[in-house]
């Protein structure tokens, strides 16, 4: 996958992700990490550039053609972004039934299985406001998985959580990695990125500055900006 363009927020972003690979996106606040993910799912419209999945170019120009992008990508947000008026089950099942017009009974069965997979088999009928932040985020992950995406995009999924709830969400992501899910993860949890990512991209001021295996990025940064960033992070 490559993305390149001249836009205000992002420029010179070029990144390839292999099937089954987990790529971490790190960088200071405002470096454009989340913007990349939001652009991929069509929440922001790129002015130029190209995204291709398995050789097919994704067309971001219209609502209709965007559907293709949404077949490929699913996103999990920092604030979970669950539908407050729906149960956990309905949150997970609604898009496949509504958008992809799949059979309701079959989707519901899959949704239950997904909720069980993220450890929430007991909570299928709970509303978001009855769940903890960690549980809500796991519902959000199940909801993204229900779309059967080629690539799962995780946008600071633990940033809004209380520290004691971070573990359960990270465990869920670890399990996905073991199952071979292709993921693009934006996170400040450097230890976690180092653990699950096969490669890490460092962004600064809207550009990819350095890409490499975690060991290289964290232990032997080449660019001064990355060196500066990691030293500040590690000081914490």
């Amino acid at each position, binding site marked *: 996958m490559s993305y390149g363009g001249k836009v205000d927020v992002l420029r010179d972003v070029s990144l390839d992700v292999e099937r089954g690979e987990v790529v971490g996106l790190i960088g200071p606040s405002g470096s454009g990490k989340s913007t990349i993910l939001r652009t991929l*799912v*069509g*929440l922001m419209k790129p002015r130029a550039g190209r995204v291709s999945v398995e050789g097919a170019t994704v067309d971001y120009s219209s*609502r209709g053609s*965007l*559907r293709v992008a*949404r077949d490929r990508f*699913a*996103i999990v*947000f920092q*604030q*979970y*972004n*669950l*539908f*407050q*008026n*729906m149960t956990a089950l309905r949150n997970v099942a*609604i*898009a496949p039934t*509504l*958008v992809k017009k799949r059979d309701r009974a079959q989707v519901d069965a899959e949704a239950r299985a997904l909720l069980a997979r993220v450890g929430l088999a007991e909570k299928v009928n709970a*509303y978001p406001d009855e769940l903890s932040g960690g549980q809500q985020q796991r519902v959000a992950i199940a*909801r993204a998985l229900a*779309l059967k995406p080629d690539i799962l995009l995780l946008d600071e999924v633990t940033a809004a959580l209380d520290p004691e709830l971070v573990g359960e969400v990270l465990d869920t992501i670890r399990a996905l990695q073991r199952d071979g899910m292709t993921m693009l993860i934006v996170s400040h949890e450097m230890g976690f990125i180092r653990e699950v990512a096969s490669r890490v991209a460092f962004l600064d001021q809207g550009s990819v500055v350095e890409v490499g295996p975690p060991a290289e990025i964290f232990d032997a940064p080449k660019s001064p900006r990355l060196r500066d960033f990691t030293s500040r992070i590690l000081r914490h």
Partner: protein
Amino acid sequence: MNYSLIYSQVTPHIPYLLGGAVLTLQLAVISFVAGWAIGLVNASVLHFGPRPARAAVQAYVTFFINTPLLVQIFFIFFVLPDAGILLSPYAAVAIGMSLNAGAYLTEIQRAGFQSLRREEIDAATAMGFSVPQMVWYVILPHIAKALYPPLSNQFIIQVMTTSIAAIFAVEELTGRAYNVNSLTFRSLEVFSITAVIYVALTLVCSLALALLGRWLFRVKARIL
């Protein structure tokens, strides 16, 4: 020489008045549901639509909020026939009340759109919801919940407003009260009974709305 209340001249007419109350409720429900649908479409247009459509909606709202309902129905009832459109009294009143309620419900629901959680819209957009799907499945439940009190108030207002129908030959509760009054001259008796029926009607409606809100939208409203 004091006036003495004698209800016996009026009580035989109570079933007739209750028949009018049914009509009153019918008109209120029809105009509320239609007005609510108009308001929802309008609020969607104001939020998502192109500029000319937004201007058209704004003109509609401005017109209907700034002219009396009586004048609006008068127009539909007496002026449209000159243009070859002759609506039955019931249809004219129902349409007039719906258009009028539509304007108010546009304003109310616009506030609901403004209070939307951006996160839910993002999620729906990212998952590929169309605008109508988003309005129906995400925005509407939010509006119903967040705006439940003003929406149910609007319904009660619709119940009261139906009394205007009497002027246009619809025999709802107020119209029938006038009829019984002219027959018996027992004004105090007729209109006190009518007032009690209206109070009962609004109490029942409020209770029904509160229960509906609780079951449908999980509105944590106290009942009475």
